[in-house]
């Protein structure tokens, strides 16, 4: 084996490359601990989330991945007894700070859930509902955002002739893409997806997967999935959680071909979980 030492970069290069790395990150998680009452669900994890990439969170049920995901836009605030310690830095602000305006935060960091949950309203109103709350009233502006969001969610061609029909008349896969369009309409920076295609048929699942890969051009995406193949297909980096710990976090290709930690290998190859 070649044993030649690699030439070491100069110290300034190292500092610069570290700065570049920092700039490529959208979130910095530092010593994050999350509790439900006395029970600690996340045990002091630290990780950086890259901009314009798909980060997959995997692990068996109860490992803390969804708890972590929900903490990123403060959804855990709704659970009595839930509290978080540590930091999640976004745009130089600690998301977990009490001073954070949670409504404003959720505009920047949107979320899509496992089960499609459109409002029992028209397709058009589903998208404009939050926009109106945010003060956008002009019809032409709303029309523009509706089209743009549906285009980005790869749903426009399928629904453009029935925008004022009920969203509940759409198929499950279309409803989920509508929920993604609804999130896109708020022009978020980060999109959190909690098993977004686990309730969908294979074709709808494939469409949502294609969409996620397409969306990372404009957004930073964090996805919780129980589907290993989905994680390996669509994500750039994968984080493996177990019992509240972050066991391994690496480039997805590495995690699925040659992970460093035995537990990761056992999990991704279906030996437990």
């Amino acid at each position: 084996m070649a044993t030649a030492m690699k030439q070491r970069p100069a110290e300034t290069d190292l500092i610069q490359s570290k700065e570049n790395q920092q700039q490529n990150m959208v979130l910095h998680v530092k010593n994050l601990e999350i509790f439900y009452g006395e029970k600690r669900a996340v045990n002091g994890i630290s990780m950086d989330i890259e901009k314009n990439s798909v980060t997959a969170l995997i692990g068996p049920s109860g490992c803390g991945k969804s708890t972590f995901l929900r903490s990123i836009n403060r959804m855990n605030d709704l659970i009595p007894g839930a509290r978080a310690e540590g930091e999640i830095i976004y745009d130089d602000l600690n998301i977990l700070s009490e001073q954070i305006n949670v409504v404003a935060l959720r505009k920047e960091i949107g979320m899509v859930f496992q089960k499609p949950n459109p409002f029992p309203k028209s397709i058009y109103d589903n998208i404009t509902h939050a926009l109106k709350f945010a003060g956008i009233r002009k019809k032409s502006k709303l029309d523009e955002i509706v089209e743009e969001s549906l285009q980005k969610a790869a749903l426009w061609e399928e629904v453009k002739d029935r925008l004022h029909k009920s969203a509940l008349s759409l198929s499950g896969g279309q409803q989920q893409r509508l929920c993604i369009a609804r999130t896109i309409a708020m022009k978020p920076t980060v999109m959190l997806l909690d098993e977004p295609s686990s309730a969908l048929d294979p074709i709808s699942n494939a469409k949502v997967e294609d969409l996620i890969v397409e969306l990372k051009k404009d957004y930073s995406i964090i996805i919780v999935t129980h589907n290993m193949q989905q994680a390996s297909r669509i994500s750039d980096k994968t984080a493996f959680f177990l019992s509240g710990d972050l066991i391994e976090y690496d480039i997805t290709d590495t995690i699925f071909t040659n992970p460093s930690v035995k537990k990761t290998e056992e999990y991704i190859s279906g030996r437990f979980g």
Partner: protein
Amino acid sequence: MNTRSKFDSHLKELKDMLMEMARKSENAIKESINALINQDIDKSNEIIQNDTIIDDLEHEINNKAIILIAKESPVARDLRKIIVALKISSEVERIADNAVNIAKSTVHIGKEKHIKEIVDIPIMMNLALEMLSDSLNAFLSEDVELAKTCAKKDDKVDEMYGKLIKELMGYVQKYPDHINQINQLAFVCRYIERIADHSTNIGEHVIYLVTGERYDLNA
């Protein structure tokens, strides 16, 4: 705790099939050299015919590997086990082809008296067989260190090959009526040298299987 015992037993079967194929190829090589020394045409023809058994085994291994990839979605080491089984089966198949090539050379030489006693070819063959045996045992026990020993022996085989070819070419002028035999013996040396190369490749595949990283044993 093992939730994929069925899959694990399929992986073990794949390994067993590969070892069976490898042992058959190893035997074919040994027999082909004995037939060469003893000028045993019947045995050589038998080796040529029996190659289809090894070819069939390779197809079975490939089919099983393809089905496991399609149905089990293997990742990491599981995936490497399957990929390496495909690669090693191909090396082993080519090793068996060289047994056939040696047998064909024996047929071509026929009953013509050997120009000299065949001594060095079996020595070179034993070295190549040791390499094959080492690489297969390395595969069986997933032993990286054993796999690496192939490289050293391959250097010796290459050295012997160079020496033997030079010697054989020296006989061309001395035995102008035996050019065919000299040619065939030179071919046999080349076949043995190839067997050693394929054994080295098996060693490299074993290292990849265990470490997940490509390794060039001839570097």
